[in-house]
């Protein structure tokens, strides 16, 4: 009986202790770029953003994404705005090179917004998916091309909330305003170089760079070039921090094509099969939000692709996998409709059964 109790406690502990702090729709996620910088935030003057990095569009400007629901985000990346799992927000390669998650922010007073205002934000975000990334930073705020920070700015402005009220440009016919200034003077050949004030200045958008003209980067206003950086938006008093621990990295490549259900995708031959939607919903709601689930996913993500490749090659294996998935799907439907209690009850019943069988086998020997 002691063993049963111990198992019961362990199972309950796993489910009770590992709830992820939920995040509200419309929250804005931020991370620094490689080397832990989000321009203007660095502790000291930075020189490594060379012309080559500029030419390769590796500006050290960090990244911004909009939280949708069920650990999904919409963000502008090259070549197009995409909807993806939040784990793809920070690519592993960026993490490996010193990138850091800065957290999530929401507009002040968003809790008082009517539900349809947030719905409209979600709708507009979804409308932008598939639109091109603005690699020249000339039309960052759409409506036809976007950068990560411009997309979030645009979406909120469309629902009547200006995150950067005194900065960058506010749109409208001829209504471009450039109140933020920072001049990064160019010298020493190809590197960014300026005064040490660079690090302390919060507001900046104007920039100079030896390659800015040849590459035609940024918006031109009165012979100056301007860009809108994530840090400008990040530091606005119009948004406040919110606590969350949703997973924002570990997705490997910036995939987001929904083919992360490797085995089921291989079995059904498409990432769009309705059963996959069910499995994904279960994964997002119960596996990604518990430590036990995340442990399972880490193993699955390691070995799943090779297993899926094997299944993909054989029609027999595909059929067998589809049959094997049936009880899993049944369990998913049960849990998604009734909550995790049946699962806990199932585990407890299983544990009790195992212990009972073990004790029953041992009993005759003892006699």
């Amino acid at each position, binding site marked *: 009986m002691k063993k049963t109790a111990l198992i019961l406690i362990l199972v309950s502990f796993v489910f009770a202790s590992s709830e992820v702090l939920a995040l509200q729709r419309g929250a804005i996620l931020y991370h620094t770029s490689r080397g832990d910088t989000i321009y203007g935030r660095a502790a000291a003057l930075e020189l490594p953003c060379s012309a080559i990095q500029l030419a390769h569009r590796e500006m050290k400007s960090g990244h911004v994404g909009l939280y949708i629901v069920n650990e999904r985000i919409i963000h502008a990346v*090259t070549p*197009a705005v995409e909807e993806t799992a939040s784990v793809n927000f920070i690519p592993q390669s960026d993490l490996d090179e010193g990138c850091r998650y800065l957290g999530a922010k929401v507009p002040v007073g968003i809790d008082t917004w009517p539900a349809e205002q947030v719905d409209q934000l979600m709708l507009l975000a979804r409308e932008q998916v598939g639109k091109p990334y603005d690699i020249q930073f000339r039309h960052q705020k759409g409506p036809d091309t976007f950068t990560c920070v411009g997309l979030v700015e645009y979406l909120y402005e469309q629902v009547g909330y200006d995150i950067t009220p005194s900065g960058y440009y506010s749109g409208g016919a001829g209504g471009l305003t450039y109140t933020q200034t920072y001049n990064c003077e160019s010298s020493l050949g190809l590197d960014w170089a300026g005064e040490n004030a660079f690090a302390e200045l919060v507001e900046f958008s104007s920039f100079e760079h030896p390659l800015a003209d040849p590459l035609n980067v940024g918006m031109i206003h009165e012979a100056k070039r301007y860009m809108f950086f994530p840090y400008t938006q990040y530091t606005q008093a119009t948004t406040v921090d919110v606590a969350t621990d949703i997973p924002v990295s570990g997705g490997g490549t910036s995939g987001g094509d929904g083919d992360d259900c490797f085995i089921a995708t291989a079995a059904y031959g498409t990432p769009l099969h309705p059963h996959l939607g069910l499995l994904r919903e279960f994964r997002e709601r119960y596996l990604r939000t518990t430590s036990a689930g995340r442990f399972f996913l880490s193993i699955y993500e390691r070995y799943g692709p090779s297993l899926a490749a094997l299944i993909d090659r054989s029609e027999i294996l595909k059929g067998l996998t589809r049959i094997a998935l049936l009880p899993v799907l049944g369990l998913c439907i049960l849990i998604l409709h009734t909550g995790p209690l049946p699962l806990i009850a199932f585990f407890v019943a299983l544990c009790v059964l195992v212990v009972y069988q073990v004790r029953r086998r041992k009993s005759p020997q003892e006699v």
Partner: protein
Amino acid sequence: MFLRKIIIPLFSALFILSFLSAVADTGRDAATDPATALDRTRSVEDRLSAIRTMGQSGDERHSDPLLRMLRDTGENRRVRTGAVMALAESDRPRSQILEAYEEVYRDRKTGENLRYTILLSIGTLKATESQALLAEALSGDDDRIRFKAAQALGMIGSDDAVNLLVSRFEQEPDRMVRAEIVRALGRSESASVEGVLVRVLKTDPEPLVRYNAALSLVQFKSLGAEGREALSAAGEDPSPMVQRVGQEAGR
């Protein structure tokens, strides 16, 4: 002795090597856009940049490599997405582009974001030839695909597209898709659409859908009496968002 036998040959070899690598790099940099785009040893960013230039050039000779990249299922997803957009920009040869779009869209292994981009590009091209595909997508199982199909049909704006959207609206269960259908109808600005939008604004149970119906009506260049009346009544709508649109329209 040491200098002559080791140091000088070593430095000479290094010099020659660095010279050769510089020449090789120059050769790479001077590569044409199609060569860069197809070169898988290049970074994805470099390839995307080349693909974009190819699309902007409008040069029909670039369509072959772009179509090849799009159709190649082993190709990087971002590169394929870039090819979809570049082809939409070049618009030539149109029939081949639309054929490739349809082929890739129908491939069961094509991921969702690539599908969204294809649907959007069909809308950008205003490709009435692909309305059958959009109609199919609009009645599919995935609500996000239906959403994008509605958006693309709205961009096309033909009579057939409007009819498809109106008939889908009646049976659409997802409120986001319903709202997007209303927005798509609003873009078409046909006289028949005004009546539909008025009905939606007056009767739809979802505030999000009513809100978008009101927004669409406001943007009509020539609004009929029925539309003006509906907008005026929207000032009393239970949703504050719809109310605001109605009140602003009244002013």
